């Protein structure tokens, strides 16, 4: 059988990672130990194999305490190891091949390098994602993530897991162990118990590291802090946490062990502890501020680029006062730190206190790009419908990564499938061939010649037929990713804190998780709908050109067809509050969103929904996508999320927000909208901008992220990057330091309309 190569970039990585603390040789030894454990445990149960492997990386991969850390827990990861997500390693038993190759170059002797080759070869057959890729990737329809030559990409990962940390802090380690111990014993339950024992060893290691830092410090105040940390670590080993510090410490170490990089509703988890400490005088707000700031730094230092979600506010919180107390401190920290992570997220509704909304606004106006705003009045009922869950469950929705929703502690919603709607349209225009590389990518769909499309709907139906084929493929690949991951691993740490794994005595993907959902990232949504509008208008309504003529112009990348391209570009575009063109966008959106959702239902999944999020895949995929009939040239970025194509929004912010609020939120599993304002507008017209946002949300806007930047600043930063080390911009589903982005992504950001 031909072996599919999966060596190559596997995720968007903008932030530069902090190098591993261990020497290359030590790293090699750890990876060998991991590999050895994996090899030797062949034939054992997957749960036992997992725990055995985990023991080779925990606690050894924990780093030293750094000066200023107020909670313990810094963790390295290597090109080989165990994880959930590609941002820090990979999924299950993973090998990140291109990073392993890069690691090899850091070794000195040929003998050492040869040892790496042995590892590489072993993992070619055992990396969980590689196993998955062997099953689903092919030469025409399905590419690996990220290989943008295909209309469809699939991957295995377990992104966006946000665990029930409330359960963790309420039960503590002893309580969790009791809960696990009380279950009927099976292999999974036994491994869970072993995982908890391993977790205690991790805490023991932190105690050693804190003591070491204590010995090395000469600062009296610092010594006191370290003493406090030591006390808290010792305490949480045997007790459920009683203070804010202890709860935070426990949560943080657990999230590290579980490989989780999105954290979720921290106000619910930590707010009550904070309030207790402040009420009883254990902490004052300034101390709390410093501790939260330390958490911010720990999250920033993980550098996951598109993750690190901390979510506060919104419906479905018990002790609202305590939660809001935590929220206010987070808002202060967020404004002061200006980090790209955590992706600080505010859920709000009509009842959110005005001072919190004001603080959020100030934070945004300061240029922090945070918090990103989620409107619960829209999202809660939308999630209820989209995921087919009751209101109480829907209230626990949380956006992760670039904006996909899951139910915290209850659902899996990883986006393991991605579609390029523009490429698929081009198959409809070219009898199944992708004009970019002339590969036939229509599978079994018989694509008719252009001359046979007598009416607009004939063409649209052909496009829909192709989309349907790719939807079928998507749902298969999404489901199959779960099957493969489940065949290989149990995700023990994750399972322990996800309903209902412990009670069912089943691993996460083995029937354990309450809601097995999933998401599909769709790209080029607006390029595709604007192209449909151009086709409908010029070919079928005005009859000015034949579809063949339009397609010829696109195939020539509009060279020699500049007049026609101008005519297409001058047509109304989505984002300008034009009812006809927006309706076309909505029609395509609903077809795609409902098509994906229904397939999830038909396949017995909890949910399967599209997400119109974006990392920088709109740019990367655009490079490999031929000219489109919205007037976009070959290789140019596609539109970001469900925002208009760069430069197309010409009617002011109300018009773009009106267009954005059109899509019904109940058909998707997360959609992000970006808007860019100048500092002048954010400050001088502050009240009006606030009212602008309020109206948008009242009209059904589900979400908004705001970049505040002045005219010419981004342009200048391209020329003089050294002058802008902390210029943060919202790419789409994540924020980044502008100068860390590649030129093409910077250009896409520049193309977006700036409102002044």
């Amino acid at each position: 059988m031909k072996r599919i190569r999966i060596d190559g970039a596997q995720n968007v990585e903008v932030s530069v990672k902090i190098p591993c603390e261990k020497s290359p040789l030590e790293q090699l030894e750890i990876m060998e130990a991991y590999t050895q454990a994996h090899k030797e445990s062949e034939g054992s149960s997957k749960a036992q194999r997992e725990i055995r492997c985990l023991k080779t990386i925990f606690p050894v991969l924990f780093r030293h305490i750094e000066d200023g850390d107020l909670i313990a827990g810094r963790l390295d990861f290597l090109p080989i190891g165990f994880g959930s997500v590609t941002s820090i390693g990979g999924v299950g038993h993973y090998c990140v091949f291109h990073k392993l190759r890069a690691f090899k170059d850091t070794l000195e002797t040929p003998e050492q390098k040869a040892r790496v080759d042995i590892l590489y070869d072993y993992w070619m057959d055992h990396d969980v994602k590689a196993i998955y890729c062997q099953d689903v990737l092919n030469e025409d329809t399905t590419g690996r993530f990220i290989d943008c030559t295909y209309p469809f990409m699939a991957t295995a990962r377990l992104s966006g897991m946000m665990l029930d940390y409330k359960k963790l802090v309420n039960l503590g380690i002893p309580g969790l162990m009791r809960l696990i111990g009380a279950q009927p014993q099976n292999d999974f339950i036994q491994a869970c118990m072993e995982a908890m024992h391993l977790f205690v060893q991790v805490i023991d290691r932190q105690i050693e590291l804190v003591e070491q830092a204590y010995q090395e410090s000469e600062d009296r105040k610092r010594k006191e802090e370290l003493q406090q940390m030591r006390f808290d670590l010792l305490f949480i080993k045997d007790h459920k946490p009683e203070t804010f510090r202890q709860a935070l410490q426990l949560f943080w170490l657990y999230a590290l062990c579980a490989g989780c990089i999105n954290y979720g509703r921290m106000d619910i988890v930590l707010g009550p502890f904070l309030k207790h400490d402040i009420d009883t005088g254990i902490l004052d707000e300034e101390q709390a501020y410093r501790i939260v700031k330390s958490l911010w730094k720990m999250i920033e230092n993980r550098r996951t680029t598109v993750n690190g979600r901390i979510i506060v506010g919104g419906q479905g919180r018990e002790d609202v006062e305590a939660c809001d107390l935590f929220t206010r401190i987070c808002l202060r920290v967020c404004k002061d730190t200006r980090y790209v992570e955590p992706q600080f997220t505010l859920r709000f509704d009509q009842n959110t206190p005005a001072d919190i909304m004001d603080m959020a606004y100030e934070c945004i106006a300061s240029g922090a790009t945070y918090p990103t705003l989620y409107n619960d009045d829209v999202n809660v009922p939308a999630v209820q419908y989209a995921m087919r869950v009751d209101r109480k469950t829907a209230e626990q929705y949380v956006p992760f990564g670039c904006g996909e929703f899951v139910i915290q502690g209850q659902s899996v919603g990883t986006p393991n499938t991605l579609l390029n709607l523009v490429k698929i349209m081009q198959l409809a225009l070219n009898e199944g061939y992708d004009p970019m590389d002339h590969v036939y990518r229509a599978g079994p769909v018989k694509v008719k010649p252009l001359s046979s499309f007598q009416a607009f709907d004939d063409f649209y139906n052909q496009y829909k037929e192709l989309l349907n084929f790719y939807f079928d493929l998507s749902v298969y690949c999404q489901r199959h990713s779960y099957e493969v991951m489940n065949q290989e691993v149990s995700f023990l740490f994750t399972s322990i804190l996800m309903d209902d794994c412990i009670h069912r005595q089943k691993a996460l993907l083995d029937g354990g998780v309450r809601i097995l959902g999933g998401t599909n990232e769709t790209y080029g949504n607006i390029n595709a709908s604007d192209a449909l509008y151009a086709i409908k208008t010029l070919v079928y309504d005005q009859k000015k050109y034949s579809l063949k003529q339009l397609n010829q112009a696109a195939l020539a990348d509009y060279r020699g067809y500049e007049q026609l391209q101008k005519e297409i570009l001058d047509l109304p575009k989505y984002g300008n509050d034009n009812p006809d063109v927006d309706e076309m966008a909505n029609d395509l959106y609903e077809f795609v969103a409902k098509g994906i959702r229904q397939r999830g239902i038909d396949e017995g999944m909890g949910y399967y929904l599209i997400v119109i999020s974006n990392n920088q895949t709109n740019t990367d995929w655009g490079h490999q996508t031929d000219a489109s009939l919205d007037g976009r040239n070959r290789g140019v970025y596609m539109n970001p999320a469900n925002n208009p194509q760069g430069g197309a929004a010409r009617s002011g912010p109300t018009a773009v927000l009106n267009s954005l609020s059109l899509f019904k939120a109940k058909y998707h599993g997360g959609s992000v909208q970006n808007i860019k304002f100048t500092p002048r507008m954010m400050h001088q017209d502050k009240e009006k901008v606030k009212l602008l946002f309020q109206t948008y949300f009242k009209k059904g806007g589900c979400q908004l992220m705001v970049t505040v930047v002045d005219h010419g600043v981004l342009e200048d930063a391209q020329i003089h990057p050294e002058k802008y080390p902390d210029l943060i911009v919202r790419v789409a589903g994540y924020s980044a330091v502008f100068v860390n982005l590649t030129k093409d992504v910077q250009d896409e950001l520049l193309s977006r309309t700036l409102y002044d």
Partner: protein
Amino acid sequence: MINVSNIEKFATHDGPGIRTTVFLKGCPLHCPWCANPETWTVSPVLMHNSGKCIHCQTCAKICPYQAISFVPSFHWDPALCHHCGQCVDHCLQNALTLNGQPMEIRDIVQEVLKDKDYYDMSHGGVTVSGGEPFVQFEGFLQLIQAFKKENLHVAVETTGSYPLELLKQAEPYIDLFLFDVKHTDAKKLKEVTGGNWEQIIINLSYLDPKKVISRTPVIPTFNDDPETLRSILELDARLGIQQANFLPYHSMGKTKWEQLHKTYLYDFPMMDPAQLTPYIELGKQYHVEVKIGG
């Protein structure tokens, strides 16, 4: 039908709340610092961006009426132009814009109503500006009547240079006048802007001062001296006008002058708004609330 120069959404400087501003064509004045010189004529005007133009002369070739020539550089003859827009459609460099198009009253209203939710939330509305809206009086009157029918808050930005009769007819449909007071010296006003102070002052005096915000673009060498600005505040106080906007000079309209191939004579550095803040205090002496900017 009425000739419209532009419809600007989320206009934040033309009255209270979030507004849409409808810029109408035609103006009796010709202020040399004007930020919207394309609105001076009622009929459409062709704007030409020399920076973008590559002198391919496609526009000249395509024009059925020989209104465009290159002798030696771009020249547009408004007398020959039929405003068909073919030159604009065929300019691949996007160097040409035809400013001004006749629009049906109902289409303008429909466009303005798209943002009704924003007006309602922010106590905003619609502002009719120009040019001078009263120049196309018949259409303007129909327009504000139509806005009122939709219960919109209607503001009008006006120079006041027209017969009182017209103002009397329009006034009942207008909630707020953003009334230009550029100078109190009739001679200087006439000389520089062409405005008729007698007419302006009659109109301004006619209005209920509670419905008026006086607006003064503060222009270097023309009216930026303390005496003139003080005299404007005195006038406001005398008429019972309680709000005044002092708009710091800016040169952002300059490119439009260039695109109209007109010489921009009032080219000064941008005025620092802080320069005008002392007038906030001065205004208090006259019981006039002075705001810097619109």
